[in-house]
Every structure is written in C-alpha cells, then in structure tokens.
C-alpha cells in the first residue's frame, strides 16, 4: 500500500493537493462503509473514484462537502483537509464549506423554478451579486461555462425541469459553478444520460478543470480513463489503489484492481 502511494505522489508531485483525506472511516449506524481511506486530491485535476456498486465511493465523495451530515445515523472519523484546514473541525461552517466545494448529483435535480432562478439561487443566498446586472452576468457566464447558454439563451424564464436530461445535468453544473467553488464533486453525473449527452459533459469537464478541481464518481471505467488524471479504486469500503490514471489502467499494482478493470469482479 505504502509504496503505491509513493508512486502516486511522484506522478502528480508537480501539483500540491487541494484536499487531503487521512485515515477516514465512515459508519452508518454500526455498519462500517469506509475504512481507513487516505487520498490526496490534486488541484485543477480530475480525480475519478471507481469501483463496484456499494464499495463506498459515493459515501467517500459526500465526505468532502459534509453532505453525509444530513444522514442522521452517519458518522465520519479521521481527517479531511481543504486548503490545510480540517473540514470536520467544530469551527468550520458547513454552509461556507459547501459554497467552496460544489456538488453535482447522480440524478439531475434542478429546482422547479426557471432556468435563470436555478442558476441565480446560489449567488443570491451567498450575496455574490450586488446588483441585478451583476447577478445576470454571473448567471450568463455560468451557463456559458457549462456549455448550456447557446441552447437556452432565449428561454431563461422557462422552468428548468422542461429541459432534456443532459441539459438538466449541465444546468446543475452551471448552478454549482455560479457559486464560484474551488472543487466540484460529481456523483455519477452521466449515469442517467445517453452517450451523446455524456460526451458533451465529458468535454465540458475537460475545459472546467482549468478553473476547478473535479472529483468524479463513475461506474464507467472508460469514462474514468477518458477524463481523469488520477484514479482511485475502491472495493468493499477500502481504497485498494490510487494513482495516475494511465498507470492504474495499464499497469495496476494490486491484484484486485487488475481483476476489476479486466471485468472479473464488479
């Protein structure tokens, strides 16, 4: 385990990690969902979390913006640092944390409001726009960054739920971007989309990583190989192996990783 981590650090050593997880355990009641996971998230890179269903990758992702707080029986121990600060520290304001670390969910979940209101909601509650014009430019810019503006520019007042599945997911990305976070967590964002919509979002992630750090949970190994620079393989609540994506897929160290990427477990 230890020497593998060294390889990772070597391959990505030119970039300082924006987030680090150390010895993270997650429990649902008495059941342990994540045991002793340590992982660095390098800045302005895409990190993919892969693994079979129920391996805990989504649970681990939700630790990064403390979305697990909303589940009563969930308990997180260990240390997760964001820019050197422990996010589970009692002094940390969860609301402020989540404005720095945005999230895109598995199923597109636009608010049942207009497209404009969907994107404007975040900046509004965080007071990011002083005037109406400011707000409008934030909304337009966010929609442009999410590659959605050209498709919806003439119907910003229509409900967000009237868009197609792929557009809705990009609307959710625009909504997350509008708050100007540093990290965007994506929980299987393409699992409900067709290949064309998936390709659009993958292209989008490629351009987004210049400005944001992205952590993506995905079921599709092809997707992980296509978009990510770092890959972490989870199995049964453990982090089996993590490192440079190319290395993981071509030359995995652990046998379990080898078995998973060749389709023998999963």
């Amino acid at each position, binding site marked *: 385990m230890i020497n593998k981590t060294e390889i990772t650090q070597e391959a990505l050593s030119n970039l300082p990690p924006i987030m680090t997880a150390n010895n993270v355990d997650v429990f649902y009641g008495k059941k342990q969902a994540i045991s002793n996971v340590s992982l660095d998230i390098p800045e302005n890179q895409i990190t993919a979390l892969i693994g079979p269903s129920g391996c805990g990758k989504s649970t681990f992702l939700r630790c990064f*913006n403390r979305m697990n707080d909303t589940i009563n029986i969930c308990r997180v121990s260990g240390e997760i640092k964001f820019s050197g600060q422990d996010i589970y520290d009692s002094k940390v304001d969860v609301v402020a*944390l*989540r404005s720095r670390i945005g999230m895109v*969910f598995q*199923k597109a*979940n636009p608010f*049942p409001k207009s497209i404009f209101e969907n994107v404007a909601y*975040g900046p509004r*509650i965080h007071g990011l726009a002083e005037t109406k014009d400011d707000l409008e430019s934030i909304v337009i810019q966010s929609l442009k960054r999410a590659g959605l503006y050209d498709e919806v520019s003439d119907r910003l007042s229509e409900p967000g739920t009237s868009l197609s599945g792929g557009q809705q997911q990009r609307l*959710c990305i625009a909504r997350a971007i509008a708050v100007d976070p540093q990290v965007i967590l994506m929980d299987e964002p393409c699992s409900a989309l067709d290949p064309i919509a998936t390709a659009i979002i993958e292209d989008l992630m490629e351009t987004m990583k210049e400005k944001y750090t992205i952590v993506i949970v995905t079921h599709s190994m092809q997707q992980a190989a296509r978009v990510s620079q770092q890959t972490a393989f989870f199995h049964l609540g453990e982090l089996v192996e993590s490192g440079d994506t190319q290395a993981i897929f071509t030359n995995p160290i652990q046998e379990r990783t080898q078995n998973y990427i060749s389709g023998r477990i999963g």
Partner: protein
Amino acid sequence: MPDYILSTSNRMAKRHAREKRFKWYGRIAIFISIAFLVFMFSAIIFRGASAFQQTKIALDINFSEAIIDPTSSRDPELLKRANYKPIVLQSLSNVIPGITERRDRNRVYKLLSAGAVFDLGEQVAEEPNILGKSKKVWLLASSEVDLFMKGKIDPNISEDLRRLKDRDIKWIEILKSQGRIKKKFNTTLFSSGDSREPEMAGILGAAIGSFFSLLVCFLIAFPLGILTAVYLEEYAKKNFLTNFIEVNINNLAAVPSIVFGLLGLSIFLNFFNLPRSTPLVGGIVLALMTLPTIIIASRSILRSIPQSIRDAALGLGASKTQTTFHHVVPLAMPGMLTGTILGMARALGETAPLLMIGMVAFIVDIPKGITDVATSLPVQIFLWADSPEKGFVERTSAAIIVLLAFLILMNLCAVYLRKRLERRW
C-alpha cells in the same frame, strides 16, 4: 398445438366472468352511493327551496303624524318604537270589508307578522319625510299565512286541526284577489339573526358567528400546524420523544370532537375565564380539533417532496432553514393549504364542541367581533330543527343548503389555490 389456445377455454371463460363480475360490483357500489347522495340532496332541496321565498302583504299605509309622532320630535328612537298598530289596522280594514268587531280586528292583525310593525318603524326612522304621506308598503305576513301560500296547509282538513281558520283563509283569498299578497324573495333569511318567529328568523347571525370562529381557528391552527409539521419533518431527530409526539398527534386526530368541547369548557372558560359563548373560544376549540388534521396532512406532503431538492439546495451551501423555506415549504404549500382548507371545512360543520362551550344559545343580535356572543351555522340548524313551529322546518333545510354551499365554496377554494400555486415557478 391444441386448437383452443387462442379460443375461449373453460378456464378462460371463468377468468373473464370473474373480471366482469368485479366490474359490476364496482358499478353497483358507485350507483348506490350516488343514489344515497341524490336522495339526501333532493330531500333537503325539496324541503328547503320554499324557504327562499316569503309571503308579503301590500297595504296602503297612511303615515299619520298625529299617531306616529304627536310631539313632532323626529327622534329616530321614538319613531322606531311608536305605535303603528292602529295605522296598520286601519289599512287592513280599508282592504278587507266587514272588520268591525274588536275580535275580528285582532284576528285580522295576526295575518301579519309580529315583526311587521318593527319594519315600519325602521322605515320611518330612516326617512322621516314620509310622515303625513300615504304609501304602499309590503309587510311581512305571519308564518301561518306564509305556509298556506306555499301550499303547506291543507284547507280541507278539519278546522280544529289547523291554526289558520276558515275565516283567515277567506281574508287571504280577498287579499289575493286584489293582488295584495305575494311570495317574494326572502331577504330576511339572509339579513337577520335568530328569532322565535319563523318568518323573522335569519341565518346571518349564525353565518357571521361561523365566520369569526373559523377566522380564529385558521389564525391559530394554520401557523401552528405548519410550523409543527415542518419542525417534526425537517429538523427533529428521530428518537423516542418525536415518536411519542407523532403517536399522540395521530391519536388526537381520532379523539371525538365533543371531548375538545369539554376541554374548552374546563380550561378556556372555567380556568382562563374567557368569555362564554363566543367565537373566540369556539375558534380555539375548533383549532385544537383541526390541528392534528393539518399536521398529519402537511407532514405527508413534506415527506413526498423528493430528497433530491433538499440535496440540491444543501449542496449549493444553503442553510437548513433556507433549504426548507426557499424550496421545500413552497413546494409543499399547495398540499398544506388543501389539507388546511379541508380541516377547516370539517370545523365549519362541527357542532358538538360548540354546544359544550355555550354557543348554542338563542342569540338575536348579529355578532360584531370575536368576543360577542354568537352561534354557528350547524348549531343554528340544530336549534331550528328542535323548534316546534312548523315554519322552521323549511328554514332548517334552507340553512343546511347554505351550509353545504359554504362547504362546496371552501373546497372549490382549495382546488383553485392548489391549481394557482402549482403553476407558479
């Protein structure tokens, strides 16, 4: 391949028959329910429709100043209480010939309602200029005359069995031949409070009492119910205490309403000394009764709002309260309002708890606020149904029609609100 595979076998025939049978059971059940409903409504409307009309008698009244206002004071109070009986009697004997004896005069005077002279007084007090002039006025007929005009008294049965005697009927026929007796729209029913005389009794007092009670009920039950539901559903941790509270709320919804009345009597009246027989106490009691309904309905609506909406807002960095009040509650509001209005509709029809807190009194005045003594529509129906006068029979049904109209109106309001709020994106 056997040749019956696509044709009807015995087994298939049985299955089809069962399906058909079941469809018919459903249809029969619906038919029976509708038949009961139609029967109930037609009975009420058949009995109550006639109450929307009222018999009036036209007389040429000579507003003699010497009799009404001998001192020429023009004081409205005096004008109201002046003695109009001789004037009315004079007009009556002008129209009906042969009224000479005192006994006859008193008898013919009974054709009119006891309230007729009060109406005259009101009229004169309102426009004193009428004094000294003569004018044709439509006066309220007595309940017996009214019933006769509506065909509810059979003149062929023995005279001893009816209060309207042959002589009275003869006079009515005379008035009829002159076009001086007519059925007109019953404004009294909608403009006055209760009365011992059926022809003078109205439901306005009861309706306003109901309105004030419901207002108090809404102002208490709606915010309390919504806030309780939101707290229990969105904030409270699931533990023994919240489970205990939940079980008790469900139990409260099943408590008979008269128990709430007893509670109101012992706590609000006897302990807190709130004014008896008032919409204030009635409203509080109805609010207690409606609360569990609102809470249960609101909680089930909140539970049906998808978790993904909460996740979306929380993920953006909205606080718990922002998530709840910007997204969850607005989405749940139509359902909450529907639950509230349906609970209020139940409260509007509630009688038992109001009996316990004394809203069952005979109240003539129309309440002006929540601390005035009042009664309510269903209690008024109960009171009239209990009255021995025959004229109250049709008025009871009329009051039921009005109550049902209000209930339908409230339900339509619920539908309208739900539709309107649902479209607001």
